[in-house]
């Protein structure tokens, strides 16, 4: 900068020029001095004879505008002279005087960035004085041009390093010097190395203090020599910002992963909790069924013994309450089972319209008590019998009718059945339950089938129930591949419908419809002398079952466990074995299989009916694998038992 200003200022006053002349030959020195003083009186010449003196002078005096030097001095030779001058100040303009041959001196000058070289022989010829001055002026102009260009290059944030073919530094700008400021730093003639980069993209190099530099490499000609140019960009801050961002994104990812894991754990815990709840519900329901078995059984047996109207009414209330209770427990069990996935459908043959008739018949007294009418509309031509799960279908329709009765104060409930063929062997049945009740608001419709949801919670008491009926109905319908739905006009009433497709059974087939016979008084009576073996460990259940069997005209022998049961079976010829599933010593299943095995030798097959409180087991036990002919679910109903006996022992099919 200083030098540039000085060079420019001397340029503005072309007469003024400070020159340091380094020449050891006294003749040559005197001749040069007298020549320049004669023609350029404004040039101030300082003369020294050795490099040592020259360096001292550079230390002591203001820097000269130009150094005019011989290369071979008493204390330095050739290239060495240039380098030591440059070491003092790399930018100092130097014009070389030499007696050597042009080719050699030219090479050194080029290599060492001398501004020009002047042959002493040429200068000292008496008539060539003008040439000396012209060349010095030209050299100064070049020095000025070089300084201006250098200033521009030093202002650039892009670093530049020029090396020769061996990788030694010929030039570098200020930015490059700053990038490599750390030891050893950039110096002229230091080995930078030949810069290597692909022609179209930069490569990354690192400085000693681990700065990251993006380098482009180019070929160029510098002072008529093939050279390498490294163009450098300090990208340290970009890279660290990039690394920092990457680090932060990693941290964020870690946080997200962490939270996801928490959520997963929470979800698993919630699912496990929900499962546990369903299982608990299922267990509690089973536990509740067992004492209900006792209550209901004893109540049914009492029915025959009571003669007073008052007592019979009380018993009717007891039976009604028990029925309701069983219904509630069954609902809870259904919810639990559909949630745990334990739910299984059974399959038997039934006539849809008979099921409806029976159901409506059962519900009609309740409707009449509430001052409501109840009507059933059946198609003129009745549908064929179908195969499906009549108990579950009945459960759905019962829920729908009860729901209609609950929400209707005046008017009535109208039940109808329509059907059409849905393929060669299938019927599509459409059950409909219409009421003239309060109706359901439009916004409530989507939630009407949700569990534990009631349209108006304040009405729960009047309507009864836990709000499970519709939810269970929907789940059951879906299990059976059917659809359930509702349409409603608030204030006018609702219409619930159930659409279900079932396979048709050949009409000539005799199916068991005993299940829909409602009358207790017409209970089937077993043939005289029917002998039944009851294998049951629970004393209360033993008692109830024994009484029921006796009520149905059977002779009963009781065994308390599976092994004892097997012994007794061996001793007599039983018409029927009622086998509880959960038995001490030997399970009902094992006992039954044992019976089947021994029977094979005896050639006489005993009917075995399994008893279980676990509804989920019935499906499995109903298979041929178990060896059982039929399954009954506890609590045992007198009517169910009667139906089984009728099925087995009736002289002609029902």
């Amino acid at each position, binding site marked *: 900068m200083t030098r540039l200003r000085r060079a420019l200022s001397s340029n503005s006053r072309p007469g003024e020029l400070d020159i340091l002349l380094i020449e050891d030959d006294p003749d040559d020195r005197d001749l040069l001095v007298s020549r320049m003083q004669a023609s350029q009186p404004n040039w101030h010449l300082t003369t020294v004879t050795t490099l040592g003196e020259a360096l001292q002078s550079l230390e002591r005096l203001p820097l000269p505008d130009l150094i005019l030097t011989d290369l071979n001095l008493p204390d330095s030779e050739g290239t060495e002279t240039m380098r030591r001058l440059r070491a003092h100040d790399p930018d100092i303009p130097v014009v070389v005087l030499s007696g050597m041959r042009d080719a050699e001196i030219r090479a050194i000058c080029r290599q060492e960035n001398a501004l020009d070289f002047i042959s002493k022989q040429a200068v000292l010829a008496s008539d060539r004085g003008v040439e000396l001055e012209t060349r010095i002026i030209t050299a100064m102009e070049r020095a000025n041009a070089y300084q201006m260009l250098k200033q521009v290059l030093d202002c650039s944030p892009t670093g530049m390093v020029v090396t020769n073919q061996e*990788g030694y530094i010929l030039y570098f700008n200020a930015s490059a010097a700053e990038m*490599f400021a750390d030891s050893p730093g950039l110096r002229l003639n230091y080995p930078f190395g030949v810069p290597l980069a692909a022609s179209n993209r930069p490569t990354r190099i690192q400085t000693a203090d681990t700065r990251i530099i993006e380098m482009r*490499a180019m070929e160029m000609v510098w002072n008529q020599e093939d050279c390498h140019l*490294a163009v450098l960009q300090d990208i340290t801050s970009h890279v660290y910002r990039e690394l920092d961002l990457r680090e932060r994104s990693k941290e964020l990812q870690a946080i997200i992963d962490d939270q996801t894991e928490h959520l997963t754990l929470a979800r698993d815990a919630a699912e496990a909790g929900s499962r546990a709840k369903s299982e608990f519900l299922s267990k509690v329901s089973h536990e509740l069924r067992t004492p209900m078995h006792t209550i209901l059984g004893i109540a049914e047996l009492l029915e025959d013994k009571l003669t007073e109207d008052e007592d019979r009414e009380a018993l009717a209330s007891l039976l009604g309450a028990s029925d309701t209770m069983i219904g509630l427990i069954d609902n809870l069990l259904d919810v639990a089972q559909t949630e745990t996935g334990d739910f299984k459908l059974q399959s038997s043959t039934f006539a849809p319209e008979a099921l409806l008739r029976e159901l409506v018949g059962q519900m009609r007294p309740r409707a009449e008590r509430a001052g409501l009418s109840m009507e059933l509309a059946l198609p003129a031509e009745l549908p064929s019998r179908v195969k499906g799960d009549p108990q579950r279908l009945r459960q759905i329709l019962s829920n729908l009718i009860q729901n209609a009765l609950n929400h209707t104060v005046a008017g009535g409930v109208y039940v109808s059945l329509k059907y059409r063929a849905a393929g060669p062997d299938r019927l599509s049945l459409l059950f409909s339950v219409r009421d003239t009740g309060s109706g359901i608001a439009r916004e409530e419709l989507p939630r009407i089938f949700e569990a534990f949801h009631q349209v108006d919670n304040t009405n729960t008491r009047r309507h009864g129930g836990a709000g499970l009926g519709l939810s269970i109905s929907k789940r059951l319908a879906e299990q059976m591949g059917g659809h359930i739905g509702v349409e409603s006009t608030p204030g006018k009433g609702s219409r619930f419908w159930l659409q279900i497709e079932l396979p048709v059974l050949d009409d000539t087939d005799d199916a068991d419809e005993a299940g829909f016979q409602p009358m207790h008084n017409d209970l089937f009576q077993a043939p005289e002398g029917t002998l039944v073996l009851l294998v049951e460990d629970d004393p209360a259940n033993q008692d109830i079952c024994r009484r029921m069997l006796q009520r149905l005209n059977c002779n009963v022998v009781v065994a308390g466990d599976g092994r004892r049961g097997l012994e007794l079976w061996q001793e007599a010829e039983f018409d029927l074995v009622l086998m509880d599933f959960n038995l001490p010593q030997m399970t009902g299943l094992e006992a039954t299989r044992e019976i089947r095995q021994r029977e094979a030798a005896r050639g006489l097959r005993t009917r075995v009916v399994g008893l279980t409180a676990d509804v989920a087991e019935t499906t499995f036990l109903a298979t041929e694998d178990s060896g059982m002919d039929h399954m009954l679910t506890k609590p045992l109903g007198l009517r169910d038992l009667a139906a089984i006996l009728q099925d087995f022992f009736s002289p002609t099919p029902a």
Partner: protein
Amino acid sequence: MNKISLQLYVIGPSVFSRIAIEHVQEMIRQHPEHQFQLDIIDVLEHPESAELNKIIATPTLIRTDRAPNCRVVGDMSNRQRLRELLGLNHVQRPPEKNQPG
């Protein structure tokens, strides 16, 4: 045949260093006709060595088994160029013959 001595200067266990080392090792594998001695020098661990050899930037690769030492700096994946600069294309010539300038 003379052994070719190479010094590769890198900085720390960075990705730059690893890439440079891999490229030089790959170049060596591609020249089974030569015997190589490769020294990998971490500038941070051996600052005196870097100082002595005036290592200005890394990665720098120097061939040291002959004078003048040839050194390159930058992208070691440019193998064709690397071979030229290290003079590997001319090994069949007599060893005293100069490299093309």
